[in-house]
């Protein structure tokens, strides 16, 4: 046999082997917005577990940066290259569900042994169900919390927010007072920083909604805008006074990063604890303050979804069920506060993150249990764009809050 013949045979054998492997193996592509090694190691660990029952299935996690996530995901879908599964934020949920972009996984979930779908509360599933269909399972239900600089509180001799929360005296009015007391212009320390310092732009809803809800208001209900209600206006007035009367809140166009000690208080989610690993001050967390309408915990949510156009829909649904079973939800709880009641109530959850004490984790658990999800709507991007100039108009000393919010409601009402 000539050398050429041998080479041809080897090539043919290799090619046929590759083809045969491709026929049997299935790869699920799963889009996420995290690039953190710790997160990806944990996710790969779950994929490895799935291989025990599905040896031919591999899962490839595809990281898309958070800022471009929805845009790139949509372009992949439009380009005929949809992922099989992915993460999705609460504000994208209604648009994706209404557009038929997500696969209904209810049959697979109900057919999966010991899945215990009832473990997810109806409120946690609100955005991800339509009629009898289930279009996603929340993997992260993250309440907004108050982070405070304990060193500054102790130096000023003030009662800390978590002590006040226990006493029942932790209110937005109190937070306003504390912020004004702790503002130290000479040291460049602000009293209060808004969510990730973006409370006037990308996160204006996250900034204002918790206060508005504590005052008994809401963004909208049943297609009617309530952002111009007396309750909402009173809540916005409180925050407005913190900027323009007390001078305690970091104003628009300024930086006052809580995590580097430049603000005494901020509101954000539990995942930001990682930013405090090297903090040179003591810190603590507390629930969101109460208002005249009582406690109003607010949560942000993200879910695992399977895409309707995915090439391996059945396997994708099975992996979704596996990833969100009680065991794996408990595993993910280290980073992502769970929506499963059984995991939330278990002791393992309280000690799941070494950077957070069990007492602090209890605050997170309470936030999840009592919290309502951020406002969401099928036309949320349009509502956000329409409301943006009116929110911008609030940020001046002489702003007429009632008139501005009335105009905002008139603008977004047709979209609701």
């Amino acid at each position, binding site marked *: 046999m000539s050398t050429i013949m041998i080479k041809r045979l080897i090539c043919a054998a290799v090619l046929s082997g590759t083809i045969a492997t491709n026929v049997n193996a299935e790869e699920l592509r799963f889009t996420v917005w995290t690039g953190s090694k710790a997160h990806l190691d944990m996710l790969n660990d779950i994929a490895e577990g799935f291989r025990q029952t599905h040896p031919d299935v591999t899962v490839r996690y595809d990281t898309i940066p958070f800022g471009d996530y929805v845009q790139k995901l949509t*372009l992949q879908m439009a380009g005929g290259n949809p992922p099989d599964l992915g993460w999705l934020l609460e504000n994208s949920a209604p648009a994706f569900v209404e557009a038929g972009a997500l696969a209904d996984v209810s049959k697979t979930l109900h057919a999966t042994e010991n899945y215990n779908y009832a473990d997810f509360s109806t409120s946690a599933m609100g955005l991800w169900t339509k009629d009898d269909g289930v279009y996603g399972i929340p993997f992260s239900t993250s309440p907004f919390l108050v982070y405070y600089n304990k060193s500054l509180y102790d130096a000023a001799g003030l009662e800390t927010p978590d002590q006040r929360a226990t006493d029942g005296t932790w209110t937005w009015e109190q937070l306003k007072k504390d912020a004004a007391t702790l503002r130290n212009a000479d040291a460049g320390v602000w009293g209060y920083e808004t969510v990730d310092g973006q409370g006037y732009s990308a996160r204006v809803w996250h900034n204002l909604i918790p206060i508005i809800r504590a005052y008994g208001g809401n963004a909208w209900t049943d297609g009617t805008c309530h952002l111009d209600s007396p309750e909402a206006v009173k809540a916005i007035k409180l925050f407005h006074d913190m900027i323009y009367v007390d001078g305690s809140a970091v104003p*628009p*166009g300024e930086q006052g990063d809580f995590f580097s000690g430049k603000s005494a208080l901020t509101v954000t989610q539990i995942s930001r604890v990682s930013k405090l690993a090297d903090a040179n001050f003591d810190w603590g967390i507390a629930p969101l303050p109460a208002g005249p309408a009582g406690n109003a915990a607010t949560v942000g949510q993200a879910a695992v979804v399977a895409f309707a156009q995915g090439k391996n829909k059945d396997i994708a649904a099975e992996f979704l069920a596996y990833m969100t079973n009680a065991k794996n939800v408990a595993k993910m709880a280290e980073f992502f506060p769970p929506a499963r009641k059984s995991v939330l109530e278990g002791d393992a959850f309280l000690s799941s993150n070494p950077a957070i004490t069990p007492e602090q984790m209890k605050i997170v658990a309470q936030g999840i249990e009592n919290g309502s999800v951020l406002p969401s709507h099928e036309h949320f991007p349009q509502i956000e*764009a329409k409301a943006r100039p009116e929110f911008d108009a609030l940020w001046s000393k002489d702003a007429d809050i009632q008139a501005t919010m009335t105009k905002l409601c008139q603008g977004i009402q047709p979209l609701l």
Partner: protein
Amino acid sequence: MSAAIKGPSLTLKAREAISGWLFVSPILTGFMIFFVGPLIAVFYYSTTEWNLLSQQSHFVGMENYVDALTRNDTFWNVLVNSLVFAAGLVPLNMLLALGLALALSRSVRGAVFFRTVFFAPVITSAVAWAIIWTFLLQHESGAVNRALSVIGINGPNWLHEPHWAMASVIFTRVLKTVGLNMILYIAALQSIPRDYTEAARLEGANGWEIFRRITWPLLAPTTLVIMVITVVGSLKVFDHIYLMTGGGPQNATLVLAFYIYEQGFKFFNTGYASALAVILFVLILALTILQTILKAARK
């Protein structure tokens, strides 16, 4: 029996033409697929109502154009913003570029250093440039307002007050892009034969007269090129706006390219966004043709 041996059936000219086409075919194929194809596709998409998310699309004829031009107030505001941005940026950029080129085209001490300094922003990442300027333009702790406070001026909240926000993005964009125009002007200035200016000087012409009668007319072709690329660049501006103001405050810096992005990728109205992109294309084409005609008419 003798078989006739056939010679080559193609003429030399035809063979040369074939090999010529074969040589250019790789780049031509790429050009057709990646440039001409999408351009034609945008015209087609602009006549459809196509939702990127639901993948549903149907033909609506000129409806997207009619809606943008007659029913959408935001579109006209956005168009005005784009024109204000261009009207602010183009003259400022060109005057500054010409001034710098006149000062730095001579072989004086330090000229190369300053040319490098003014050209450096052109090759700096647009993202880094925009982010650094948002820090410099902070209200109380920004370097710009601190410097102004030294001379007793209480600076505004540059990026958060509607009028100042537009001025700020124009100014920072000019600083970012002026270096390229400066280099083009320097190259043009250095190609003007010295004999002309020396002869004029011998005839008793002063500096201003030499500039007005000799330098400026000889710079005309370069000025046209610079004007066209600066106008086109200013109407297409996106990154600067996206990073510095996000179209705010109160939509004061919401320009056409950013609005197209919002319609296409945030609201998923791909057909509508395509129609807006065609309008931007026509606007840029019209302005470019107008500039060329005006230049030709002056000759």
